[in-house]
């Protein structure tokens, strides 16, 4: 069984930041493995530990910088990695989710996995759409927001739980091959061991340009154009308790008394 895991390196913004034009200034950005993808990698690696002959391959669209993030996934147990990048992609500042799915679909055509796992959404743009769009493009079945997955190598269907709103789970059987978008909390992602980190250095990480995958410039145009980025205005007038720590605590204690939730 071959499992392809889509892995995104996400931008994280520091607590205090400044906006430069239509972007958060580069100095306030950090880069990391997308949290949901961490759960997807773990799910794939666990399937590999439970069954023989499972290969876990990760795919990332990103610049050379993201090799560090990709090595994290390899250190946690993925077998090899693919990264797609070229100058045209670097110019594509805000790919829409269907465009990203088209890029990934070219990798699926190449790899022909039995299962594709992707995170429900990414920490930064949070489209929550790429995995399901990908499934349709490659003519695989799918299920979104999966928080329980049972699949056996060679089986024709997988059983999943989809986490609906308000503490209800939908139990669904899905034909294979399929794409599942993995919800946080489905497992406990491991920390990479020192041995894993060492091994990751020698695992294959192949870099493709979109043209290697049969994609043309036309495939790499986004429907999205970012026109502004700003800090949202607060909906509520927040009264801040200020002063030293003791004064802050005093004021909060006063409020709780006033609201009658504590006995003063």
């Amino acid at each position, binding site marked *: 069984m071959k499992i392809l895991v889509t892995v995104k390196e996400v931008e994280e*913004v520091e*607590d205090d*930041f400044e906006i430069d034009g*239509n972007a958060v200034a580069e100095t306030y950005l950090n880069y990391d493995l997308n949290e949901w993808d961490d759960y997807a990698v773990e799910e794939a690696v666990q399937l590999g530990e439970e069954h023989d002959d499972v290969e876990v391959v990760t795919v990332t669209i990103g610049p050379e910088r993201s090799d560090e993030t990709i090595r994290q996934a390899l250190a946690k147990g993925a077998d090899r990695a693919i990264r797609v990048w070229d100058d045209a992609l670097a110019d594509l500042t*805000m790919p*829409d*989710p*269907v465009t990203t*799915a088209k890029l990934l679909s070219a990798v699926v055509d190449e790899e022909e996995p039995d299962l594709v796992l992707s995170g429900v959404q990414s920490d*930064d743009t*949070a489209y*929550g*759409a790429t995995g*399901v*769009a990908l*499934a*349709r493009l490659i003519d695989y*079945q*799918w*299920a*979104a*927001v999966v928080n329980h997955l049972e699949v056996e190598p060679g089986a024709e269907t997988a059983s999943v*739980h989809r*986490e*609906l*709103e*308000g*503490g*209800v*789970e939908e*139990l*669904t*059987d899905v*034909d294979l091959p399929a794409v599942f*978008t993995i919800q946080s*909390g489905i497992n*406990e992602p491991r920390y990479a061991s020192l041995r894993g980190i060492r091994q990751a250095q020698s695992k294959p990480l192949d870099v493709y340009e979109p043209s290697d995958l049969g994609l043309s410039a036309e495939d790499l145009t986004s*429907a*999205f*154009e*970012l*026109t*502004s*980025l*700003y800090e*949202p205005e*607060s*909906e*509520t007038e*927040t*009264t*801040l*308790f200020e002063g030293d*720590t003791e004064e*802050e605590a005093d004021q909060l204690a006063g*409020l*709780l008394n006033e*609201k009658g*939730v*504590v006995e003063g």
Partner: protein
Amino acid sequence: MSDVLAVAEHRQGELRDVSGELVTAGQELTDSTGGALHLAIINGAVEEFADDLSLDGVDTIHTVDHGEEFNHDVYLQTLTQLYDELDPEYVVTPHTVNGMDYAPALAAEVDLPLAPDVIDFTNGDGLTVTREQYGGKVETTIDVAGDGAVVTVRPTEWSRTETAGEATVEAVDAGIDDGAVGSTVTGFEAAAMGDIDISEAEFIVSVGRGIEEEENLDLIEDLADALDATFAASRPIVDNGWVEPGRQVGQSGKVVTPDVYIAIGISGAVQHVAGMKTSDTIVAINTDPDAPIFDIADYGIVDDLFDVVPQLIEQFE
């Protein structure tokens, strides 16, 4: 004169509130396109739902009865057919767990751009959508190119249309190809919540990622004890297995409406806010003055929780 197609949502025999919000959002779009507003109701008690959703601004309701519950293949086939027939400029769907299960597939199928989790839009010389990014720390406006789009709207961002209207109801023979239906819902299950019920609590002390380590949770439990408040947590804390699922506040956990809600080290992601924003008084303690929680907090302390909480405990012990 371009039409708009909106898609209702229901579950286990009940229409979900977001359906009425989609009517409002859809109507906003037809106001600018000058076309008709179509509403698709797929599966479930379609006739009853059509009665309920015959609302002001809805021109035609298309019903498809091919099962009780949501199934993404039935939705995809139906909406592809309606899209081909009606040729709408925009398709509006809810950004819910089920919406996420068919809207991206529809966009890929009919080759439209997808604008997901939209909190506002304007449609003049083309569609411009407003979205959040970086967990709500910033908002963006995005021009969406193309001859139309699938737009998924965030629940509760639009008000619900409640005024009755006079929509024409048409039962559609969608000619569903059962051979192409590759998933089967076998049941529903309540997530394991344990014995705790926080939904009725009047005073809640809730903790988030800012607590950093599992062993630090004692501090917040001590505060809840000292204040005689109910202890709760945000999703990451429950995902880590540090707190039982029954204490989770948010979209996938419990909705709470206490007199006072103290959010400690909680950034205020939309999924969390959905579960607590109707609390009477919201207090946030967070080191990050830009954390989205302060957008809805009535009172706030911008300081380190590890300094403030021990000080508070001392006050009440």
